């Protein structure tokens, strides 16, 4: 059975839709990474301050990781769109 015919216009529209959604995610994650820690670290003292700081570092790392993964995906989507041109 022959493969279904590919509609380049539909594919482009789909990729552009994905690009729009993913770009919003990247934008938010980038802002979240740059934002002050939600742990209000200056309010903690002693051991709690160390743990709050550790938590803030780990949270920022996870947000940055999510941002990088999403950004990579955005690049792939852009590449796919470019290849359609």
């Amino acid at each position, binding site marked *: 059975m022959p493969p279904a015919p590919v*509609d380049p216009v*539909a*594919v482009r*529209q*789909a*990729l552009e*839709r*994905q690009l729009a*959604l*993913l770009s*919003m*995610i990247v934008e*938010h*994650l980038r802002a*979240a990474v740059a934002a002050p820690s*939600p*742990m*209000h670290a200056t*309010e*903690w*003292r*002693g*051991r*709690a*301050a160390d*743990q*709050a700081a*550790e*938590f803030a570092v*780990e*949270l920022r790392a*996870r*947000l940055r*990781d*999510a941002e990088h*993964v*999403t950004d*990579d*995906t955005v690049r*792939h*989507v852009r590449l*796919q769109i470019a290849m359609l041109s």
Partner: protein
Amino acid sequence: MSDPTLVDENSTKPPTAKDPGGQLLVTPAGTVVVSTDAMLSSVDALRALQAELLIDLRRALAADAVWDGMPITDVVPAIERARELCDRGRETIARAAAEYTSAEQTLAALQHELGARVASLLGPAVFGLLLSLVVSNPVLLMAVALGGRAAISDDRDGKLEALQDFFRDHPELITSPEFVRFVSVVSTSIDDAVPHPFGLPLGPNGGAEAGAVTLIALGSTLGMFKETSVVAERTSTTTGGSAPVGSRDRLDRVPEDELVRIEKYEAPGQPPRYAVFIGPTETFSPFADQEPRDMTSNVHGVAGLSPAALRGVEQAMADAGISRDAEVQVVGFSQGGLIATMIAGSGDWNVVGVETFGAPAGSVPLPEGIAGLAIRNTDDFIPALGGPQRDSNLVQVEREAYAGDAPIVTDEVVPAHQRTAYERTATAIDAAGSSTIRQQTATLDAFATDYLDAPGGTATVMTYDATRVDGLTRVR
């Protein structure tokens, strides 16, 4: 990351030169769990971040579901990992708060049980000693503490002045959370020390209420704490003025030299609303004279009876035109806070908001659904005279007025109970970041601003003072 305990119970915000106070401790309404404002702010921020990440997650899933698009495989798990960490942070903070609260409650329960047992063992044997130590001294102590100023001159044998001088020289003895706990134990153990002294019915729940009833019974043998009739009179009426905004602004409107200030807010097409600001104790003699803002009102208030100060405020409210259906907000400092809480808890008025500062009102139950804050300095023992906090329908905010190694002022008898100490706490509350506090202050603010910011909104301010009359006749 290791499982963190994000709160350090031994930590306090370092005092600054301007404000020697510690961080805000918050007990949300309907709970007994104590958190710091910083913890609650962190929980708010983590919750907000989680909500935003949920939107990201939905966008990623929507992108993955696009027909003819490319597969989106790694984005969802990466966002999920960040969301999961937010969850863990929130849970850890909540657990830390619960553990802290549990430890505090266990300690308090042990102390109260010990206090009650010691008191009941000692009671009959050392009744005379208790009369002087448990009755006289706490009364004198309350007198000195509630005032701490030159007005304390109405004692009969000079003890008040001596105590005043002593505590001025040693403020650290009575300005600590540990001393507050001790006072709470004493206030709830007096009735255990004097089991059935005069055959009087004690309060249904024992504790501070029963202790105050016992004090009244014992004091009556010496002519102390005799209630009287009271008459309230309007002293001024002015129109205009701004809406109170923030805890500090409301505290500033609590009168010092009069019984009560009532602000009437009107807006076109709306029924009037009233804010009632009730002043603190004015005179400290346990022997009632003309002034209803006295120790007799304090003790009768803690006992859950009908103190003259309460009746005077209610007369003023009626004179100001406050109907039983009109929405009322009550604010009070010290004894004024006790009276405010009693008015809110009475069910006789349509109280929708309460804000108290340093009120010995822990035993006064409040109905659910009232907005507001019960504010106490943890090193101020006056609120502890009302016993431990039992009501949980109002958000409780506590703060050490002199935290850590902050120097305690020596020109005031009970520094942590002074209006200046509560002014600093009120300012800290206005700067609080947690939604638990902000929602309450916003609701209290809106009570007046909703009307006065509307076109045609007006305010009328009435002040009242009251006088005890007919000293031999009990009323109600």
